[in-house]
């Protein structure tokens, strides 16, 4: 049975030819999506395929640059979340929309409280009665007077769903709803979803867990590189085929590497690392002269591992050895051992935007360059200038405030900061995010140069092609653990994705 044959009537909500452009990046390109009442439509694709952007357009957080949205066949504009609500579209957020110290009923009807007789007051009896009624629709009987912060994650999610239903949502959008749930809670959620299906609600569901894609989905749409690859029925496909469809992005060969071959001393050794930020026992080894990738889906724990290694977060268990020495301190200690962290969010964690380029470039090197605390401004400017030339940072002068530099140059500044500190092991977290192609190539060339001189690199990236073309080998993380390690020969996008997703 093809897709066309299964659908009974017109879709409740249809997106045609949706396009969305951000500066320098085409997030979506002529994507179609049909949501039918009574169906769960699964959206799958690797990181950055466009799933988030698509649903943001659905519920009015973004506006599409091109294409149309049809509601029950009629064209509509969704310019804001309020518009989406009016069309009966509701999103299930995990954290954004509940007030912790209000009770369930107050949260359900926030902004729509039933009025009491005196103007401004709330009819509390009716508030709770309405709340109980909505919860019962979901087969749930929490005490509506409980404050939301006392609920577990799964229960809060139920409240979110109840909130959506109470607004007469006919289309629900869910983004990885089972990420934080236990097995039992998942089962309960699926039961509720099936019930909603039976009532004719259309559900758009983003998931990385292939098991639930096939268990719960009635229709599957695969996105890749912002484009629609294919829409299929679960019965017509299998997990392997899905993975093959998801990978295969355009390769940017300008940064393919040549491999040096023999890795040197062990720069990093991690044993059984666990933290309360979600890491559940990780082992890693990185040697000088190699680039090791750390891959996995968003939320798998890659950045958390990087932070724990660097000492930004304290591990609860396990040991970290930098160049053979056991470390258990903060970033200062890591730096002293020659380790650098180039964070994912360079503006918030890597740079002081209101300070000059010179000050930023010197920030990690102060102790090394000026061990007796006396700060020689002229020398500092010289050192900064040399680094600017070496990295070819485009700026009129070293005194320019870093906030005015482009993304690529800002990233170079972060790298320069650590190069000045004399580091030998670099942890790079999404080093090329938000950077144009030209700068990307430069940065990879720099990293390549460093590695040739004997540095060690651990690189986190959500772009599979980057991992495959730049790294010597890669670890793949899944839900706080290492799902597997891929050597030179087995390093392929499909293999990475298979390990990263929930597949046997």
């Amino acid at each position: 049975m093809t897709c066309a044959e299964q659908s009974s009537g017109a879709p409740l909500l249809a997106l045609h030819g949706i396009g969305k452009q951000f500066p320098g990046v085409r997030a979506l390109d002529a994507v179609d999506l049909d949501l039918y009442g009574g169906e769960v439509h699964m959206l799958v694709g690797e990181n950055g395929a466009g799933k988030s952007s698509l649903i943001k357009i659905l519920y009015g957080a973004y506006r599409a640059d091109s294409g149309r949205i049809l509601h029950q066949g009629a064209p509509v504009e969704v310019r804001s979340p309020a518009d989406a609500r009016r069309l009966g579209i509701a999103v299930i957020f995990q954290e954004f929309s509940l007030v912790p110290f209000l009770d369930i009923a107050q949260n359900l009807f926030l902004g729509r409280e039933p009025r009491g007789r005196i103007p401004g007051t709330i009819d509390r009896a009716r508030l709770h009665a309405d709340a109980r009624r909505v919860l019962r629709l979901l087969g749930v009987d929490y005490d509506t007077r409980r404050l939301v912060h006392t609920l577990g994650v799964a229960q809060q999610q139920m409240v979110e769903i109840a909130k959506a239903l109470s607004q007469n949502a006919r289309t629900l959008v869910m983004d990885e709803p089972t990420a934080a749930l236990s097995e039992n809670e998942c089962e309960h959620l699926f039961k509720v979803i099936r019930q909603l299906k039976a009532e004719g609600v259309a559900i758009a569901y983003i998931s990385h867990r292939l098991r639930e894609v096939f268990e719960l989905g009635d229709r599957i749409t695969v996105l890749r590189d912002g484009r629609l690859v294919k829409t299929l029925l679960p019965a017509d496909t299998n997990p392997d085929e899905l993975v093959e469809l998801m990978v295969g992005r355009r390769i940017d060969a300008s940064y393919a590497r040549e491999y040096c071959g023999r890795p040197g001393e062990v720069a990093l050794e991690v044993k059984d690392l666990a933290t309360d930020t979600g890491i559940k026992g990780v082992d890693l080894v990185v040697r000088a002269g190699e680039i090791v990738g750390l891959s996995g889906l968003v939320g798998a724990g890659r950045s958390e591992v990087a932070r724990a290694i660097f000492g930004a977060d304290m591990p609860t268990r396990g040991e970290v050895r930098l160049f053979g020495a056991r470390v258990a301190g903060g970033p200062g200690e890591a730096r002293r051992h020659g380790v650098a962290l180039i964070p994912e969010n360079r503006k918030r964690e890597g740079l002081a935007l209101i300070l000059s380029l010179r000050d930023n470039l010197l920030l990690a090197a102060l102790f090394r360059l000026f061990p007796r605390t006396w700060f020689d401004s002229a020398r500092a400017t010289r050192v900064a200038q040399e680094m600017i030339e070496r990295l070819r940072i485009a700026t009129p002068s070293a005194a320019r405030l870093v906030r005015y530099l482009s993304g690529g140059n800002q990233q170079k500044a972060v790298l320069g900061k650590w190069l000045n500190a004399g580091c030998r092991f670099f942890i790079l977290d999404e080093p090329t995010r938000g950077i144009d192609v030209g700068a990307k190539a430069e940065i990879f060339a720099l990293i390549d140069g460093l590695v040739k001189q004997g540095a060690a690199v651990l690189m986190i990236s959500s772009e599979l092609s980057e991992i495959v073309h730049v790294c010597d080998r890669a670890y793949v993380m899944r839900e706080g653990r290492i799902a597997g390690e891929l050597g030179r020969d087995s390093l392929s996008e499909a293999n990475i994705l298979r390990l990263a997703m929930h597949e046997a």
Partner: protein
Amino acid sequence: MRVARGNLLESTREAFARLGGRLAAVILIFVVLGLASDVFLTQNNLLNVLRQAALLFLIASGLTLVILTAGLDLSVGANLGMSACLAASVLKATGSPFLGVLTGVASGLATGLANGLLVTALRIPPFIATYGMLWVLHGLSYYYMAGDTIYGFPPGFREIGSGYLFGLPVPIYLMFVFLAIGWLFLERTTWGQEVYAVGANPVAARLSGVPVRRRLVLVYTVSGGMAGLAALVYLARLNSAEADIGEPLLLPAIAAVLIGGASLFGGVGTLGGTLIGALILTLVLNGMNLLEVNANWQPLVTGAMVLIGVLLDMWTRRRAEEKS
């Protein structure tokens, strides 16, 4: 040495450029007051103004360091009061200026250290911690003094506040000395660079290996120490000590720092700016006195200047953000 001098010239030039607007304001106020009042341009009055500004600068300089880290020290006034009272007792009891000075500075430093620990070890937000400290010191001073006044200090000690050196009041020399020390600290030591970084982006600073907590303790301790030092100058000038002598200095100190261009959000500001801010504030208040405006309006004007200073800072930041 040539290089160092060259740098001094450079940074002075830079400072002039940045503070140009405020310098212009100083000159403007000068002209206006000179025209409006006959008494203004007399030597007596001008020296008075400079002395007042110097005292204000002493207390505001330590506060500047704290504000550079995006913090606030609301206890500086009460700290000054407490330190002054303690120093006064020691001076009366021992007759030794040296011991008096030691007590004053030690008391200021101790309070500053306590503030620093409250903020870093107990993670109490700076304004709440120093606000609580304000009241604790207030209570302790009042209890300690029990409504009395201590007066009559050894003449050697009094030189600090009321004495003259080559025709200029001593506090002005102190002001220049600490301006220089402060400048050296902020511009010529790694600690100073780290202080700016902590204020500009504490997260990035930490992730760059800067010992953020240690630097915070440092700035709060210095702020307390300067309050203690200012207490001595004040004591020497007034020749008496009461429990509440520090209270009216909090708002003007904050005003001076903010008018001088420092940002409450951290990472922006200079001691030179604070000096000019202290000058501007002192001139305005002096002008009000000379024009016989009721002294009771002064807290109002100071409060208004604080608000204007913050609004200006917020407006500047918003403009800079839009440009980037």
